[in-house]
């Protein structure tokens, strides 16, 4: 066993032991504890948990690579702006009001505010989006185990499943939240240390966000010399329309993803929900402001050392990633050298997988073995924390929105809790299976999930709060229209189905922004012609706009309000 493997084992083992200890210490016995941690998490801790929940294996492992290598600098900005800008929307448009509403899940809000039909559509959306996501996390766990510990991917995923099982099934939202606080700490330390070290080494400035300005001129010059477009040049890869639409789809999608929204239910109060959003973006920004610097440094290093190298003469780190197939060299022109003139990636001589940029940074910078081990533990923390948040959404959707609300409303607390745990365990098995046998299109579908979140949930949540007269039929029609058009466009344009040009060159992720507009329009138009919400419902919507205690909201949250008062006369169609 090499010293890198030994240190990886030590850090991974220690972090796993910590997660399990926290889960044991915060185990729960009530449904409120299981779904929303009893609504008693202080804002900074909730913010760190949101950050860990939100920043997936993709943010930690892939994003720097996506920006610098496949996005060639500027085009990758859509992810940076899109995945942080959504928090401004969450903080101002959703978090305080949904917290005041005081329920457990996103379908819960949709069902209570609108109708049972809308609840079922929301359940399906929430489960589909979450499964798509969780599969990506589990395969991320597999990649880390395989590369750093030389374990088979399947074994790696199974280890990940067991760990998540222990703390998520035992501790529910409470266990998950406190574990995520620990996971955030591990992942941010693991991300920042190599970034600071590499910045110090290349520029003499230990602040990567400032350091990357020092190499930018040289990086631009290097790229121009090699026949690539400038790193900072605008619209060299993606036109302005798609930059606009993708940024919008990711922003509104962030504000529409159920596993993020549900975190604001765990806050202590409306005020704490606002502060949670602030803390969350602060913790996320620490990583998101560093990622573009790591990407630029890595690209600078690679372009400085690799092009023109004789094949067989590459640096050590380069070859260890070649061994696991994440760097491939293909001497197309047969001159025995690695050429990057014209480009990198599929169909060129050098292909560097986006996933290695962060994981390889410490090796490229020549940092000692313990730091490499720490980065491996950080990658696992990012993947596991997101996986557990998603699994909770799946479990609570099944146990609360389907089982308790639709199948057995008389179920006791203990019974609901058991159903929640069984649903969680089943979801872990399915997620693990998807992680070991990822369907070929997972990578694409993860980005698409944002489009779906933007097109389905965001409009009806915002209208449900800000427009008292938004009707149930309007919301159901809007969700179906937004989701339907977006899915149809995405399936039509994804490479595997042929027509990848689409209309006006709008790419498949971008369309989520258009689907959202369609949802807004349909919901508003249909609402004009359908029965208005009952006076009690309009009063309830009015009441959630103001913090502080109100009798109506309290009675509703406690389930003391009559169904007919809220939704009018019983409509048999709602049972469909």
């Amino acid at each position: 066993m090499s010293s890198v493997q030994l240190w990886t084992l030590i850090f991974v083992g220690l972090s796993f032991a910590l997660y399990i200890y926290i889960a044991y210490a915060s185990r729960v016995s009530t449904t409120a504890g299981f779904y929303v941690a009893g609504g008693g998490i202080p804002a900074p801790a909730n913010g760190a948990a949101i950050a860990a929940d939100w920043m997936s294996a993709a943010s930690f492992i892939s994003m720097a690579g996506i920006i610098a290598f496949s996005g060639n600098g500027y085009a990758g900005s859509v992810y940076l702006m899109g995945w942080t800008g959504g928090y401004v929307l969450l903080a101002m448009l959703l978090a305080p009001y949904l917290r005041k509403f005081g329920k457990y899940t996103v379908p819960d809000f949709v069902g209570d505010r609108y109708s049972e039909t809308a609840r079922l559509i929301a359940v399906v959306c929430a489960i589909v989006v979450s499964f798509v996501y969780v599969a990506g996390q589990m395969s991320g766990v597999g990649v880390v185990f395989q590369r750093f510990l030389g374990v088979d991917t399947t074994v790696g995923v199974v280890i990940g499943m067991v760990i998540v099982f222990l703390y998520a099934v035992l501790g529910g939202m409470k266990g998950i939240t406190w574990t995520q606080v620990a996971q955030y700490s591990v992942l941010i330390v693991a991300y920042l240390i190599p970034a600071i070290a590499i910045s110090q080494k290349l520029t003499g400035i230990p602040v990567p966000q400032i350091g990357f300005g020092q190499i930018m001129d040289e990086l631009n010059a290097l790229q121009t010399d090699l026949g690539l477009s400038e790193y900072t040049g605008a619209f060299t890869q993606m036109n302005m329309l798609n930059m606009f639409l993708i940024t919008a789809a990711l922003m509104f999608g962030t504000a529409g993803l159920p596993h993020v929204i549900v975190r604001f239910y765990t806050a202590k109060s409306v005020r704490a929900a606002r502060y949670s959003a602030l803390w969350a973006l602060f913790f996320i920004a620490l990583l998101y402001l560093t990622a573009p610097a790591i990407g630029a440094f890595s690209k600078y290093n690679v372009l400085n050392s690799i092009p023109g190298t004789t094949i067989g003469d590459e640096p050590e780190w380069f070859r260890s990633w070649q061994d696991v197939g994440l760097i491939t060299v293909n001497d197309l022109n047969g001159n025995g050298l690695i050429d990057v003139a014209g480009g990198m990636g599929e169909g060129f001589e050098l292909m560097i997988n986006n996933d290695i940029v962060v994981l390889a940074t410490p090796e490229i910078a020549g940092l000692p073995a313990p730091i490499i081990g720490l980065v491996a533990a950080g990658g696992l923390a990012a993947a596991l924390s997101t996986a557990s948040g998603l699994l909770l959404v799946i479990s609570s959707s099944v146990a609360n929105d389907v089982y308790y609300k639709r199948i057995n409303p008389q179920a006791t607390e203990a019974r609901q809790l058991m159903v929640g745990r069984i649903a969680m365990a089943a979801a872990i098995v399915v997620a693990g299976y998807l992680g070991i046998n990822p369907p070929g299109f997972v990578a694409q579908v993860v980005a698409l999930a944002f489009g779906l979140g933007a097109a389905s949930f965001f409009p009806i949540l915002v209208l449900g709060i800000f427009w008292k007269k938004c009707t149930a039929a309007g919301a159901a029609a809007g969700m179906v229209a937004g989701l339907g058009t977006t899915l149809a466009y995405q399936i039509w344009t994804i490479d595997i189905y042929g027509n990848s040009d689409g209309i006006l060159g709008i790419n498949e992720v971008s369309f989520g922004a258009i689907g959202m507009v369609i949802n807004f329009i349909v919901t508003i138009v249909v609402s004009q012609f359908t029965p208005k919400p009952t006076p009690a419902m309009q009063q309830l919507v009015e009441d959630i706009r103001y913090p502080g205690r109100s009798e109506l909201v309290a009675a509703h949250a406690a389930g003391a309000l009559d169904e007919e008062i809220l939704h009018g006369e019983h409509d048999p169609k709602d049972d469909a």
Partner: protein
Amino acid sequence: MDAAARQSYWKRNLRLMASLLVVWALVSYGAGILFVEQLNTLSIMGVPLGFWFAQQGAILTFLILIAIYVWRMDKLDQEFGITEYEDEVHGS
């Protein structure tokens, strides 16, 4: 809060939100995308300004926007005598 107080609270909340969201759109869609080429002729700490907004400036501004929102809403709550936060309930 009586009806008149509620109306004025809500109006001020909406006005605050609207002005913060205008800035939100200006730094991301404006400085980061629409005017990126014009801004790139200037530079900040060695990085072209438009590119800097797209990769650093927009995120920093988002953080400041939420901080202002949280701070102003706290003041608004205080002004309207809302103190009972911890009484809020949870259930399903």
